[in-house]
């Protein structure tokens, strides 16, 4: 598959809206950090070594089968890189310094491997809903196959060695993206965050720092990577996630029974604006899409379907809009194009 085909298609596997607890859990990401023995970590790689490593990993990726392709970011346009970030396929850091960096992608975009990011390899699998087991199995399988061709730096005591000691051991980060409008609306979210942090779970807004999340979207993930096994880390995060999901459902139930009119009004207004706006900022779009999503999940609205809502999280972002227009857009043009995409999709 060409990179252009990946980029022009809004859909990515994680947006399917399926899977366990998909009324609250938008998607799951599992990533394994791996480094090659005998090379400095990417930040300290000489150019010739970085190039050699990129070649070596690209060749090794062939073992994963025909649905995988490697793209060299040095040959990719910055706007295209931004779309990869917006589709959650690479990190913003990876898109910034592109020389000697690469990304391997499978055709469904469920799997991606960042090459020469903070670590030599960041193998990640994205699944819709709460799909930790599937994602971990996928990432481990890819890691195992690549491990047959690449000599990963491993220490008997410390496990897999990573550029930052916060990733050492399993190199595993499991994170889930949650939509928590009811916990936010009822002011319960801060209490939940305090509890999660005590359990060694990191909480972030999806966009930007802090827990003041746009669109009521939050990421929670494990902090500890050394000590417990991969399965234990995954199970711990699933257990905590299920508790947050239950709390969110409970809060939604309360809102619907006790303030039905207010919520129906809020959801209806959000839908109305999205359906008919001609100029809309990213911030307003995020906020209203969250209200509409709450409406769909609590049965107040019967459309748009989850997958459309997930796609809208990405296609309303600046990179995607610019790329589709074929040029960098001005502020007003962007607002207009965003409104148009939304109108067409929420109808």
């Amino acid at each position, binding site marked *: 598959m060409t990179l252009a085909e990946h980029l022009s298609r809004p859909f990515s596997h994680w947006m399917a809206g399926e899977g366990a607890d998909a009324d609250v859990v938008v998607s799951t990401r599992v990533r394994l950090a791996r480094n090659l023995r005998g090379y*400095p*970590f990417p930040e300290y790689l000489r150019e010739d070594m970085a190039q050699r490593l990129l070649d070596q990993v690209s060749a090794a990726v062939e073992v994963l089968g025909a649905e995988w392709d490697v793209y060299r970011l040095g040959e990719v346009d910055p706007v295209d890189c931004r779309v990869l970030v917006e589709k959650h396929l690479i990190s913003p850091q990876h898109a910034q310094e592109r020389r000697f960096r690469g990304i391997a992608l499978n055709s469904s975009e469920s799997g991606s491997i960042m090459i020469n990011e903070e670590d030599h390899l960041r193998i990640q699998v994205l699944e819709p809903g709460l799909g930790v087991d599937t994602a971990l199995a996928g990432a481990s399988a890819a890691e195992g196959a690549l491990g047959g061709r690449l000599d990963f730096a491993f*220490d008997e005591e410390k496990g897999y060695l990573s550029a930052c000691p*916060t990733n050492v051991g399993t190199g595993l980060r499991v994170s889930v993206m949650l939509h928590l409008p009811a916990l936010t609306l009822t002011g319960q979210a801060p209490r939940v965050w305090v509890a999660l942090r005590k359990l060694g779970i*990191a909480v972030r807004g999806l966009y930007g720092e802090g827990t003041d999340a746009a669109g009521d979207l939050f990421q929670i993930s494990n902090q500890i990577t050394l*000590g417990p*096994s991969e399965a234990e880390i995954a199970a711990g995060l699933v257990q905590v996630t299920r508790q947050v999901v239950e709390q969110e459902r409970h809060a939604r139930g309360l809102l619907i029974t006790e303030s039905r009119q207010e919520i129906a009004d809020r959801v209806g207004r959000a839908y109305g604006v999205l359906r008919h706006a001609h100029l809309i900022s990213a911030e307003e779009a995020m906020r209203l899409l969250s209200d509409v999503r709450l409406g769909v999940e609590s049965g107040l609205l019967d459309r748009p379907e989850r997958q459309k809502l997930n796609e809208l999280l990405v296609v309303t972002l600046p990179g995607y809009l610019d790329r589709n227009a074929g040029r960098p857009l001005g502020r007003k043009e962007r607002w207009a194009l965003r409104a148009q995409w939304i109108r067409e999709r929420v109808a």
Partner: protein
Amino acid sequence: MCQECKRRTATVHVSRVVNGQTEEFHLCEACARERGDFFFVLDPGMALQELLSSLAQPVQGSVPVPERACPECGMDYRTFAKTGRLGCPECYRHFHDQLDPLIRQVQGSVRHTGARPARALTPAEPDEVTRLRAQLAQAVEREAYEEAAALRDRIRALEKELEREGLP
């Protein structure tokens, strides 16, 4: 105040160097998001990394900071203390005494119990000794004696380790 909407308080401060020119931006979160070129989804590990970097700052009375840089990649401990990131896999061994308490503090453990490479790779393979010996020979040839001394120490350490594990 945000320089874009001129309404909200600027909470995002970015300076960017483009072609040697420094540009500064002071934006509110909404406008920063709208601009998109500061699009940032932070790695959840980030806060921990900052913590780690602060812990790595030498404190009086703690294990002394090693003077010698990592023989494999040349990174010194002070650089790690600043960035929170190591230079190469070998750094874990070289800075073991400083890193261990740090890792224990951040991770709560220093012992990996998870997956391991399917191929039976031991921490110090005999192959590695062979490779280092070749490097040593080259270093001596070039009269790079400091490098040679470092390599010799490395080889001795590895051989000791192999002996301990009963490997040839």
